[in-house]
């Protein structure tokens, strides 16, 4: 079997603040295979964005620190956590591309689109300006922009939100990266534009066989694009597995809650939406035991005392919940979870 593009082991990231240490990421491990689309889902503050940015070493130190024992092995040979800043600059943009959430603020307003796309090409590849500009035009065609020859001379303010996100994707793809990280790429966009961008990402993934990590809180987007899903809560992975396993055979009560709180077009209006009571814990002082215990309807004594290990559901599906322990009482997932909703 080919080596994974990315192997993350026990990643821990903390922010040292005046008021104490915020433990944003508390031991995250996962692998990403070539050509795979991995979705990281979770609510705000669960550490999904910090995880993604740490993969690119974009979180400034200080205040953030990658804790000892963390490992991010890229392409089977580069240990990202130990690279010097100089070496890291050769990786960013060339080996790993990133798409940010807000296309309005992530582009440079004083540079033309063409200059911004060719910037990375000029830095990482031995090509001249004319050649780089030609590549920029081709990339704009790839991301579905009309009149690319004219567009390269335009500035970001001349484009709409959806167009700007297409430009961001072109920049991220400029040097044919092995890994593309998309941090909430559609959150700032309208739903009809979101559909266009998700379609584009899927299309590009098929054409270029790039591995993609997509960070989102929208389970609809996940269902549309991902092969595998990582569910995060309070800085930890609570469940991970193939797309269909997470949607049709979820094992963690948090995943149940998340899936049930999304309204569906085909759901019954008269029923109350299921919500998860309470709110996520404070990561200045993360709770002892399972971080979800305080909001979990199935919490047992042990959940408040000891953090659960990852129990395997199948080869590639695991859940960090004490309910998975052989001695735990058998709990049936709530109605509406598991099985194919449409028969």
């Amino acid at each position, binding site marked *: 079997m080919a080596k994974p593009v990315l192997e993350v082991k026990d990643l821990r990231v903390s922010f040292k603040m005046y008021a104490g240490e915020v433990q944003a990421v508390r031991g995250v491990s996962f692998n990403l295979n070539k050509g795979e689309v991995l979705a990281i889902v979770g609510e705000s503050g669960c550490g999904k964005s910090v995880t993604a940015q740490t993969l690119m070493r974009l979180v400034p130190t200080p205040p953030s620190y990658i804790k000892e024992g963390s490992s991010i092995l890229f392409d089977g040979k580069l240990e990202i956590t130990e690279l010097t800043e100089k070496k890291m600059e050769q990786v960013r943009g060339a080996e790993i591309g990133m798409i940010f959430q807000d296309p309005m603020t992530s582009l440079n307003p004083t540079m033309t689109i063409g200059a911004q796309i060719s910037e990375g090409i000029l830095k990482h590849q031995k090509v001249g300006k004319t050649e780089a500009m030609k590549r920029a035009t081709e990339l704009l065609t790839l991301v579905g922009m009309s009149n690319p020859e004219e567009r390269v001379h335009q500035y970001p303010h001349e484009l709409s939100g959806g167009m700007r996100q297409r430009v961001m994707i072109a920049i991220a793809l400029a040097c044919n990266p092995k890994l593309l990280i998309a941090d909430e790429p559609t959150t700032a966009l309208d739903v009809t534009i979101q559909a266009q961008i998700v379609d584009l990402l899927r299309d590009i993934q098929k054409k270029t066989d790039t591995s993609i990590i997509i960070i989102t809180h929208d389970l609809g987007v996940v*269902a549309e694009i991902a092969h595998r899903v990582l569910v995060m809560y309070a800085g930890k992975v609570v469940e991970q597995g193939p797309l269909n396993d997470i949607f049709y055979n979820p094992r963690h009560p948090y995943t149940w809650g998340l899936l049930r709180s*999304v309204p569906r*077009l085909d759901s019954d209006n008269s029923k109350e939406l299921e919500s998860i009571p309470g709110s996520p814990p404070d990561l200045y002082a993360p709770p002892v035991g399972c971080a979800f215990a305080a909001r979990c309807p199935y919490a047992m004594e042990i959940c408040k005392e000891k953090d659960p290990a990852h129990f395997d559901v199948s080869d590639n599906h695991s859940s960090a919940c004490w309910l998975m322990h052989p001695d735990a009482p058998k709990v049936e997932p709530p109605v509406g979870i598991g099985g194919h909703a449409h028969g």
Partner: protein
Amino acid sequence: MADRPILEVQNLQKHFNLGNNKILKAVDGLNFSINRGETFGLVGESGCGKSTAGRTIIRLYEATGGKVLFNGEDIHAMQGKDRQKLTRNMQMVFQDPYASLNPRMTVGKIIAEGIEINGLYSGKQKKERVNQLLRDVGLNEEHAGRFPHEFSGGQRQRIGIARALAIEPQFIIADEPISALDVSVQAQVVNLFKKLQKEHGLTYLFIAHDLAMVKHISDRIGVMYLGKLVEVATSDKLNAKPLHPYTQSLLSAIPLPDPEAQKQRQRIILQGEIPSPVNPPSGCPFRTRCPHAMPECAATMPPFKEVEPGHFAACHLL
């Protein structure tokens, strides 16, 4: 009186003058009514004018043209005392729970402000009323002495709702009340809206861009595009049998949180983006992105007509 809708919007217009002879027609001829005890959802993409519509209805903006009748009285013709009486009956919940609460006031003060202005209760009764409101929205009495920054987004939105409820209004306009919240918390707040409606017999105008959520809470839904209503129907009908091509594509663009169903779906992906409202297309505003556009669409704006009983749409195809 019993059958008269609580709110009737008649040809409402709100235009902003941008200078240089440019006029932005944010709301351009809205017609709909809301019945007592009903939830009317207003959806559309950003820039379609749905928030401006909400703000013009409650008269945070002066209308450029048209009428808004509340219990039969024109809101935009009201003066002085009548206007204050109106605000007692009509309240608003805002989108951003971080920006819409005064950071220097305690939660108790924020909620009590309307009660004081309207002289409803004072002293011990007022305090009792504030405590009652806090309990109604799922907070507790101790929270009255705290400041907004001590609360999470979902809790702040509950405070905003308690403030709107404080003076016992009949009608609440909620402008994107949940879009700043996390999914699991959104569900909590939507359930709270539904619970309060049952308990107090409230009527809502619920403005949002998330059609799935709007469908869940609303009895009837209006879909807006570039300042105009393109379709109005009951929420079940809108979902089961959307008539306007824009509504069809909007429904189709929402990804289902169900991978298998998602794979089997035929989707309509719209090309292009919403045109600028400063320079809208002639005729039907949707024609530049419509998969069924005909020459007729560029020539005239299709009338907003009742296609089936209670189901209105504006499209030349119908």
